[in-house]
């Protein structure tokens, strides 16, 4: 069974400090929903509001349509997986997994049976009598998930559970988490500062900054059509140019970014608020949207000089300088796009790949 979660005008204030600023959102039952943001953006506070460790100063948290105010964390249909997993080191694996049953007074035999079932689910059959310290990081991860699933909660809350793992394992666990979610069909609410995790696993993502939800959407919308400068600069790499809107006919804008001829940029219905002529703007062009011009007639073309290159195997990350401004350029390493470091190089980008937004706070690199 899954339940819908809704946050209605949720504020959390600690004295003068506003940790969560009027959060409003609905999470459907069975959804994999991520909160993405830098540390201190309020995502963990929001998670604690849902799990019941924090009461909102104002507003309501509803689970399955029921207001959760005054309902303690032990009475909510949520299970939280902590960043450090918080497995009990003095208990065996099976006793860890069966802990939620133990505190509900389930007898020992049933507990053990359920623990064995869950060990089966997380592909650690027969390991119930081991100690926590005998498991690897990924195995501990799975035990924490099994423990959370032991009493069949409606909602699983995950607080950056992969951040302690090494890169390879992290990527593996992403796939595994998603698979477990599909298998058990629960609502997963996932907190992360790692956009790769958020983009690969989530049905929808809420990007947060300084207590505010900046944008909610699926991964593609967040990445391709960010609606604020913060989202554009926080999610993925982006080049940002400061410019002025010269004209906007509803379909395309002309933007002067100080790099020679004005750029033509398409408006997108899913994009940010419309800009009017004369408005200052941030023009974002992703490193992979920039390309080496094939000829001199390309639209949105400008001249650059080579600065430096980072080689990453499949990709080459190149820094080019255009009129004193460093721009990042990512090229697939297919052997066809060598750059002549001694001569000026012309770059361009497609009008639909430029994103013009109202100037706002940028994510610090």
């Amino acid at each position, binding site marked *: 069974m899954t339940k819908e979660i809704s946050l209605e005008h949720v504020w959390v204030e600690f004295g003068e400090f506003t940790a969560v600023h009027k959060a409003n959102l609905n999470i459907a039952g069975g959804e994999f929903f991520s909160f993405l943001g830098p540390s201190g953006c309020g995502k963990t506070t929001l998670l604690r509001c849902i799990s019941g*460790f924090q009461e909102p100063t104002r507003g309501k948290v509803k689970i399955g349509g029921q207001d959760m105010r005054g309902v303690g964390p*032990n009475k909510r249909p949520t299970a939280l997986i902590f960043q*450090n997993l918080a497995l009990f080191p003095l208990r065996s694996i099976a006793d860890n997994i069966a802990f939620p049953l133990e505190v509900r007074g389930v007898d020992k035999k049933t507990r053990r049976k359920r623990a064995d079932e869950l060990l089966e689910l997380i592909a650690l059959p027969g390991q119930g009598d081991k100690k926590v310290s005998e498991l690897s990081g990924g195995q501990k991860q799975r035990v924490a998930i099994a423990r959370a699933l*032991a009493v069949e909660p409606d909602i699983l809350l995950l607080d950056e559970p992969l951040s302690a793992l090494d890169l390879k394992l992290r990527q593996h666990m992403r796939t595994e988490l998603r698979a477990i979610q599909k298998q058990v069909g629960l609502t997963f609410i996932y907190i992360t500062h790692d956009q790769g995790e958020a983009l690969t696993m989530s049905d929808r993502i809420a990007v947060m900054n300084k207590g505010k939800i900046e944008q909610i959407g699926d991964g593609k919308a967040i990445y391709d059509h960010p609606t604020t400068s913060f989202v554009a600069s926080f999610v993925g790499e982006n080049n940002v140019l400061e410019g002025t809107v010269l004209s906007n006919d509803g379909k395309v804008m002309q933007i002067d970014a100080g790099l020679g001829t004005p750029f033509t940029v398409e408006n997108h219905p899913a994009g940010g608020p419309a800009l009017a002529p004369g408005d200052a703007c941030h023009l974002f062009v992703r490193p992979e949207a920039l390309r080496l011009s094939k000829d001199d007639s390309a639209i949105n073309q400008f001249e650059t000089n080579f600065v430096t290159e980072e080689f990453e195997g499949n990709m080459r990350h190149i820094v080019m300088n255009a009129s004193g401004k460093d721009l990042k350029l990512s090229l697939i390493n297919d052997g066809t796009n060598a750059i002549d470091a001694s001569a000026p190089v012309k770059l361009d980008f497609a009008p639909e790949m430029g994103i013009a937004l109202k100037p706002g706070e940028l994510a610090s690199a």
Partner: protein
Amino acid sequence: MRDLFYDLVRRNGMAVSIYLMLAVSLWVFILIILPQLTMLDYSFRFNLPPAKIGGPEDVYTLEQYRYFFQGSGASDGFNTLDIGILFKTLLAAVFVTVFDLIICYPVAFVLAKSSSGAKARLLVLALIVPYWINEILRAFAFRILFGATGVINETGMGLGLWDTPIDFIRQDVALYAGLAYAYILLMIFPLYNAIESLDRNQIEAARDMGANWWQVHAKVVIPYAKPGIASGMTMVFMLTSGALAAPQILGGPSNLWFTQLVYQWFNSGGNWPRGSAYAMVLLIVCIALVLLVMRLFKVSIGEIKQ
């Protein structure tokens, strides 16, 4: 031993190492082991006048221990009086220890987990400051507090709770209260240390998984803090059963603490061998009891020293 010394030299240099070795040996051998060995030796001797010491009558004997078990009576019958006092002392010390644990655990928990750094430091200071006052003064303060015309009796009678002054001293209430108070810090700090190192997430995880507050403590905090609990209980028990000042000042007239017996043999009795034997009996019984309880609760000495 040699390796240990070389290791010390490598880490700290020659001067510091020699100082450390000397200081530790001085402390352990001269201040702890040597006096205890002397006591042990004394306890196996007759109480002889100075002139006969070293003479032909100065031989080893079990007489002092026999006296503890059988008293001055010829052969049969137990020294029920002294053995009774020993058991009463141990029982009272256990009671005081458990009482201290019960009142200190919540304090230590709040101190370790619920208060912020600055607030916790203030609380710790408030706990320590009373201990700047001499133990005997504190005992006398309790005597005044619990006396027939003391604050407690005055208040109780003023409020009409009881009519005639309650003799807290004769009832040993003052003694238990004084002893419980005397070593409270030795219970709080090991508990605090143990609980403080517990990851707060463990508590929240247990809460989140449906445990109520009682279960959080019974299943997560207390098992984790077990070495701290054992360490605090050991210290309080050992010191309470060996306390002298509080029983002297706060004890009822008809009620002796075992240490008072030891004191009497040494002092007014002028029988040092017998005093030594009594002290040894107390020491051995206490250690045995502590080891037994530790085995019962599956705590090892190695865990305690953490």
